[in-house]
Each structure stands twice: as C-alpha cells, then as structure tokens.
C-alpha cells in the first residue's frame, strides 16, 4: 500500500541510541528552537551517528526513556510547532572523492535501516576498496507484515538509481546485486527496468523464504560465499546495504536533508486500518496507531519490527527510531504464546536453522550449563532469527534459550582466557 504522510505529531521523542555504538551527544538545550534537519546531537564516537530534528519546534526536555534492552537511554523531546519548517542551513554536501563521500554518509545520520542500525559510514569506510567484490542491496524484506522496504523499491527508484551511481563513482563498485524475494514481482520488474542499461547491476529474484534478508543468508544466496565465523561480510568480499539505507544516502547527497523520517508499516490484528505511514523519527507509536484509525480490538502486545525478530515494547508511547520499519499491535489471541511442552527430538529445529545449528542440542547443553559443549555447538553464530522457535511443535522458547546460552558461553570463554593468562604468567615467573 502506498505510504501516507503523517500530519506533524504534537511531540517527538528522539532517542540518542538509534544505532549500534556510542550514543549521540545532545547539541541542543531545553528551550532551543529547532527546525527540520537541524543537528540536535553529534556522533558520540567513531562507531556512532549524528541525530537531526525531525520536526520544527522547541526542545521541551532531554529525558531518559526505556530502551529495548531494558536499560535507559537519553532522548531529546521536541514540541512541534506544526509547521515542519526545514532548517535554513540545509545544503547539499560537497562530494568529490571516496573520503568526502564517506564523510557525507557519516553526516547524513544514516544507519543500517533494515533493523541492525549499524552506522553506514563505518561500514563503507573500508581501507582497501579492491577487497569489495560485490555490493549487495538487501531488498529481501522477509518478515511477515513488513512492507516498508517494498515501498522504497516501488516509490524511490530515482533515489536508488542515484545511490547506485554513487557506489559506482566513489566506491568503485564493480558489481551491485539487488536481492529481492520473488514474491515481490512488481519490485523486481521496477528495478529491472530501472537498471536495464547498467551491466554492473544484477537484480536477483530470491526464493521467498524466511530469513532470506539475514546478512549471511543473503550473501550466500546471491554470491555463493560464506562469511567465516567471527569475520565480517567484507572478508567474503561483500558489503550489504539495505535498500532504504541506500535511498536515504542518495537523498542526503542530492538535497542535503539528513535522515529525519521513515516509512513505517503500521499493522497487526488490533489495528483498524493498517497503512504504510511516512513518519518523523521520534513519533510515538501511539500517534501512528491513532492515525491508522485507532484500535479495533484491545491491543495486548506492541511490536517494533516484524513478528519474527521484532521487539515487544512495554509502552506504546515509545518512539519509532531510525531503524524501525514496522510497528505492530496484536490483539489478545495473537499476543498469547502457546505453553512449551517436552522436546520430542523431532529435529525440525535442526532442519530449519539457516545457519546449520542444532537448537535441540544447544538447549540440552544450556540446561546443563555446559560451556564447552555450547562452544562446540556454535551457539555464538545464532542470529536469533526465530526459525527454530517458530517451527518447534513443542513450542520450546529456543531463541530465548540461545540468548541465555550465549551468556553462559561468554562466561566460559572468559574463564578459559583467565586460566590461560594465569598459566602463562606462572610460566613466565619460572
């Protein structure tokens, strides 16, 4: 469904941690007047990203709000004046070579918009460009419900064309592969006709299968390469960018307007009129639900992201972030998870794991607290896609178990390291 623009919300709550890495540092004070696209927080380190005002108005307070990991994070609260006035200082960045391109990406505030939120400038700032054999543009969007990347591929082809041109010009891209699930024929057709004259661009129709958009899965399915354990996609010669990430970079370089809004899929069994909504970053989820006709049923669970990897939020007043691509409100029936029963060793989890792990054995090792076994079973590789827990007929909470098992493994590894150091110190003393 084509996205609809949300009228300016009354207030936006813009978190300082919308990316992986150091939180951004607020550059505004309470009472300051800000306009759309104005810097409100500077990057807090190398792996970090600046944050921009998404509405025009007045800074009401700098608050602490709950983060999805249960901790608190800083957020700048802006009371909107309803005018959405762009900042006068908006100007196209000057891009003439690789360094200035990466610098522009850094100041665009763009982070991995597929969900990970890794600062894109860090990903693109590679030391040796010849190591990048392929750029993979992730348009798989494999989670149920979510269609915000689909809208990017249908509505923002010009941005995508410009983005590809930027990669070719400044990143020396030799091969750019769009990975799109075959159940989005309109996107594939649109991309094919847009890039028909560019021999460096391939549009790859992938089998519609969760988790097709997982980075390692996508790299393997588009290039046949395997990212080794503990290594980066770059070690397999690939850089993966989400389609909306690429389009957002192009928009900044074309217009100077940094990342201040997102297309968010608003859906779920409790939502009256599901829509794709263009919303300022920091809009409280509740405002999005109200814009979509409110609730037709009492919502019992609110998810940020899709139903497979999305995070259940304790409060619908929490804002959408840079990397939020959907907010879902589920009714009571959909919110209830079935009760786990005994594992029957059917091996379904083993069959469905996209990374070749054996969740049932990992659960055994977790219950015994067996760090060595967890190490052998490679629980550290688990990307928590949820395929095993979805498919499990006994409804075992396998993702949760894997998360906890990673904790046991970390403790075990730390213990091994400490023992090795002790031994080395002893031998050195002899």
């Amino acid at each position, binding site marked *: 469904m084509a996205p609809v623009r949300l009228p300016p919300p009354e207030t936006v709550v813009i978190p300082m941690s919308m990316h992986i890495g150091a939180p951004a540092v607020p550059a505004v004070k309470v009472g300051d007047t800000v306009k759309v696209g104005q810097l409100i927080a500077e990057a807090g380190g190398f792996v970090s990203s600046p944050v921009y005002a998404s509405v025009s108005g007045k800074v009401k307070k700098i608050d602490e709000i709950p983060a999805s990991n249960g901790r608190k994070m800083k957020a700048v609260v802006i009371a909107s004046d309803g005018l959405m006035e762009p900042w006068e200082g908006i100007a196209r960045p000057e891009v003439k070579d690789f360094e200035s391109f990466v610098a522009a990406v850094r100041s665009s505030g763009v982070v991995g918009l597929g969900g990970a939120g890794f600062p894109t400038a860090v990903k693109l700032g590679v030391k040796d460009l010849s190591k990048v054999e392929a750029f993979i543009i992730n348009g798989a969007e494999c989670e149920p419900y979510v269609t915000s990347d689909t809208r990017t591929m249908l509505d923002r082809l010009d941005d995508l064309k410009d983005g590809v041109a930027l990669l070719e010009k400044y990143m020396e891209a030799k091969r750019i592969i769009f990975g799109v699930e075959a159940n989005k024929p309109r996107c594939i057709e649109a991309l094919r006709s847009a890039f028909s004259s560019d021999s460096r661009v391939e549009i790859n129709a992938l089998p519609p299968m969760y988790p097709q958009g997982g980075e390692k899965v996508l790299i393997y399915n588009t290039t046949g390469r395997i990212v*080794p354990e503990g290594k980066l996609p770059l070690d397999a010669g690939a850089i993966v960018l989400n389609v909306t990430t690429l389009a957002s970079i192009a928009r900044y370089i074309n217009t100077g307007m940094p990342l201040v809004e997102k297309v968010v899929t608003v859906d779920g069994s409790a939502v009256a009129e599901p829509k794709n909504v263009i919303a300022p970053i920091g809009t409280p989820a509740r405002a999005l639900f109200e814009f979509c006709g409110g609730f037709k049923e009492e919502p019992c669970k609110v998810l940020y992201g899709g139903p497979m990897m999305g995070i*259940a939020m304790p409060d619908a007043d929490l804002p959408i972030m840079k990397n939020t691509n959907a907010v879902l409100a589920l009714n009571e029936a959909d919110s209830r998870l079935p009760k786990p029963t*005994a594992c029957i060793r059917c*091996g379904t989890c083993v069959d469905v794991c996209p990374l070749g792990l054996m969740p049932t054995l990992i659960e055994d090792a977790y219950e015994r607290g067996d760090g060595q076994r967890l190490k052998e079973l490679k629980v550290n590789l688990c990307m928590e896609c949820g395929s095993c827990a979805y498919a499990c007929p*006994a409804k075992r909470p396998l*993702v949760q178990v894997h998360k906890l098992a990673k904790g046991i493994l970390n403790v075990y590894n730390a213990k091994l390291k400490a023992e090795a150091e002790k031994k080395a110190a002893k031998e050195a003393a002899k």
Partner: protein
Amino acid sequence: MNGLLTVTPSPHIRSPRTTRSIMRDVLIALIPVVIVAVVYFGWRALLLICVSGAVSCLCEFIWEKAFKKDITISDLSSVVTGVILALNMPAGMPVWELIFGDICAVIVVKMLFGGLGRNFVNPALAGRIILFVSFTADMTNYTVPSFAPDALSSATPLALEGSLTWADFPSLLLGLHGGVIGEVCSLAIIAGCVYLCVRGVIKPIIPACFVGAELLFSWLFGAANPVLGVFSGGLLFGAVFMATDYVTSPLTNWGKVIFGVGCGFLTAAMRAFAGSNGAVSFAILIMNLLVPYINDITRRKAFGGVKAK
C-alpha cells in the same frame, strides 16, 4: 488501551503444528492397519487395541498424578504407544499380558526416565520385547486369517522362507498369512507411511534405508528370496511406525541414513544367523541405543563455523 502490554521474547508467531497434532497424524496413519487387523482377526483385535491405548494413557495419568506433575496425556503420545504395542500382538494374546506390556512400556521405559522425549528406547518396542521374552509362547502363537490360502496358512511366512514363490506375493501384500495383528498387511502399512510422509510427520529416509539395507544384506547372506522377506514378518511395520519414533531416532538426515541402514543390516543378520522371531525389534532396539552417538558424529556443520578448540 489502558491495559498493560505483554512483553515476550521473539518470535511472536508460532507454527500451528504441535506435539498433539503430530501424534494425531500418527494415529490417523494407523487407521488402515487397525481396520485390516479388525477385518482379518475379528473383534478381539479391536479389543486389544482399545485396551492397550486406554491402559497406556491411564499409566501416564496415574504416574503424573502420583508425583504431582502436569498431566500430559492430551499430547496423545501414550495412546500412540499403546496402539502400536497392541498392533504387535498376535490376535490370541491374553489381555492381562498385554496390560503388563503397557505398564512396562509407559511406566518403566518412558516415565521412569523423565517422560516424553527422555526415553532412550522406543517404549512400544521395549514393551514388545519384554512381552516376547516373558511370554514367548503366547507372543509367537500367530493366528492366521480364516480366508488365507493353504500355502500360507500354517505359520508366519518367514518361517516358511524358501518354500515361498512369487505366486504367493499378492497374498503377502494383502497380509493373508499368520502374524501379529498389525504387521500382516503390507499395503495398509505403506498407505500409513505415505500419509506420514505427505503430512511431513516423518521423512522417508529411515523406512527406505531400513528396507533397502535389509534387502541388500539378506541377499548377501544368501536368502532364497529377499523381496518376499520384506513383505513377511514385522519389517515394514517396524520400519514405518517404530524405527521412525522421533525421540529414539537421529536428528539429521545423514544420521537417519546410518540408523536405517544399521537397522536393516541387523535385521538381515539376525534373520540369517539367529531366529527370525523378533529380529526387527532387536535390531531397532540396538540402534536406539546408538542414537546419541550417531547424533554426535553426524552433527551439522555450522554455516561458516570454524572448528572449536
């Protein structure tokens, strides 16, 4: 929306398949076998099946009640155990002996080791073996369907091996010969197997490897007619309904291959060099015990994983 929101870890959707739906599919797959058993061996067969299913369930219920555990009989796994055990009985089996078998299967083999998923051998199979060893005479007193042709009317076809010819093949397929109530009709068992495979409850790997290996090795061991051996005796029933038990078979596809071939080899060897009675049961029992080791050597390689030190 004033109520509190539920917070749970992802994923937030689950597939409709449950342990109960899987067990229900196994029971559905057993329907052709049960119908044949009743038609061939009369109402006594139905009595055995019903009593056994009910007693197995009751055993699990009493155990869980006694030890104040959650009652899990609604997952139907004990019903499956009871029905499969009953289908391993000759029609004349005394009911109290079968009840003893059910108690052994459910209480001793399953519940004592922690209930569903924790038993290391198939409960129905162990129950059959206990009965076989305890009441050998009753367990081998095979009844022959009244309308069986003369050539097959004396004992199980396995005992007649050598004197059978291809002319007897159709009767073998239809099960017009002596044997336990569930194993005689190969066609009914194959129908059940097809249903389980189509529904995705089992993969055909274990039955195919089991039967294939038995064929190959019994030929190598000099059986007069290996193909007829497949369709007489308990091989097919064991391969489809007992060797494929999730809990006591390997997790990976290659593990299933090793397991199936092992079962086939042991069955062929026991049939060739020991008595033919119970060869399939003992073969599966031995392979059940090897499952943890098979799981270990056939572990899937993690995607991009480097070897752990």
